């Protein structure tokens, strides 16, 4: 019993170490290149151009947010990158390989709650590694690590129905990251949360992102959230869904709540707000 515990602690250390030094790992990049992407929803009666001429490159380990009015095709774009929807024109490449369907290297966090209700928090986090055939002990180490990161250790054996909305999204993020994806796709993951929880979640996400170093493509319609989180904000417009403009966020790399008061933050917020009004 004792020996097993020790072993687990050892593994945890090892796993934490390897997760921490992720960028050094060979072959793990995560550059997304979207080129000339178009999407048409066609039915017998009508034809709807949801996306047209999208060109966007997201560098490895970059954190990019997309903002835009409701219905401009943000989710559609993200789902195409995830491989859950088909594109009708152009291409999406991940590290040079064309994306053709969903895969473990592109993790996703959805707006709605999509934890598996029949699995405990820990089992949800271990779902991806288990599919990959990671050994039980190593899986435990991974889930323990992420339970610590999302600060839900005492809920390891709870079922999703026992969690609050914010806790569920934290687990969903951990579940996606436990799979060591090259890219993390997030579709308004904090949209349903109250203001305070949202701030906490944003800080936690940045903390995790700095540790795990994956590429993040994050969708929101909250301008402040977009600026606070990312290094680059992409603004989309509707009819057809297209990219209007991209902004580099010139703020300190270390984001604390104080950056929200900085002139650079406020002026970018004003600029984005003006652009989105039209």
């Amino acid at each position: 019993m004792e020996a097993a515990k020790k072993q687990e602690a050892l593994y945890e250390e090892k796993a934490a170490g390897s997760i921490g030094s992720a960028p050094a790992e060979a072959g793990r990049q995560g550059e997304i290149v979207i080129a000339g992407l178009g999407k048409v929803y066609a039915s017998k009666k009508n034809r709807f151009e949801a996306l047209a001429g999208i060109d966007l490159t997201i560098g490895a380990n970059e954190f990019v947010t997309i903002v835009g009015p409701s219905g401009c095709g943000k989710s559609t774009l993200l789902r195409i990158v995830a491989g859950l929807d088909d594109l009708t024109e152009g291409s999406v490449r991940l590290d040079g390989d064309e994306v053709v369907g969903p895969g473990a290297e592109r993790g996703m966090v959805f707006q709605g709650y999509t934890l598996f209700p029949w699995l405990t928090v820990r089992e949800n986090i271990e779902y991806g590694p288990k599919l990959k055939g990671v050994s039980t002990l190593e899986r435990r180490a991974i889930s323990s690590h992420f339970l610590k990161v999302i600060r839900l250790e005492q809920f390891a054996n709870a079922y999703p129905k026992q969690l609050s909305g914010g806790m569920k999204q934290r687990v969903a993020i951990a579940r996606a990251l436990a799979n060591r994806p090259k890219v993390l796709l997030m579709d308004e993951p904090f949209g349903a949360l109250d203001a305070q929880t949202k701030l906490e979640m944003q800080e936690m996400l940045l903390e995790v992102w700095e540790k795990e170093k994956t590429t993040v493509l994050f969708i929101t319609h909250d301008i402040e959230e977009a600026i606070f989180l990312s290094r680059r904000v992409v603004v989309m417009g509707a009819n057809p869904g297209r990219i209007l403009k991209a902004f580099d966020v010139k703020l300190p790399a270390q984001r604390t709540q104080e950056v929200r008061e900085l002139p650079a933050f406020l002026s970018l917020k004003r600029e984005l707000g003006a652009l989105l009004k039209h």
Partner: protein
Amino acid sequence: MNATKRRKPHTFQIFKDIGGRPFAFTAGFSFLLLLIVWSVLSYAKAVNPVFLPTPDKVLTEMIKLLGTGEYWHHIGISVFRVSAGFILACIVGIPLGIFAGTFKYGEAFVEPPMEFIRYMPAVAFIPLIMVWAGIGEWAKILLIFLGCFFQLVLMVADNTRRVSADLLQASFTLGAGRWKAIETVLIPAIQPQLMNTLRLILGWAWTYLVVAELVAVNSGLGYAIMKAQRFLNTDQIFVGIIVIGLLGLISDRIFAFLNRRLFPWA
């Protein structure tokens, strides 16, 4: 607005849980009411006793019958027939239903003919079954099987289709392929609903049992009821009906219990 005058909550609140005790009490009261109506009608001789025996006569008859090995044999053989037909229907029907619910080709292949056959009364198959399977044990099991099978397949397919597409897509983005998604998402996700479906179908199985035992048998509860009818022995008919009701209730409770124990997450 007066703060001290708090409004008493309504007794009947939509979907509101009332707790175990009030529930059990109300259920008991409902049974009691049934018994009272029965008593009033029978003791007051409002209905001819040949048609409606008194509760105490039925009770003494029940105690008498349950004291005989012969009646337990009837119960045993009936339980066996119901179980065999039901389990066979499950073995074939559940995988077929999942298949039909998962793939559109499966739906197209399985469901239209089933929808068609489902509306043919199982009773109408009796002569055919007797031609096919004779009048032996298999004939009864086959009838129960047919009665359950088509309903079961359609309901399981429906359960499967109700699984949230978001959960499936989440599993895809976590690296699951089609078969893994079926194994690790579809099948766990339908289980609680599936148990409810099985509960309902088991009810059907008991109905078809009585139908199956009405023809050419000399054992089983249905037969006992038929025999009692021939002698206009309504006491025994009532005993038969009550025993079948009790057996159905017991199996139903077992399912409900299993559902709570096996799926605490639901």
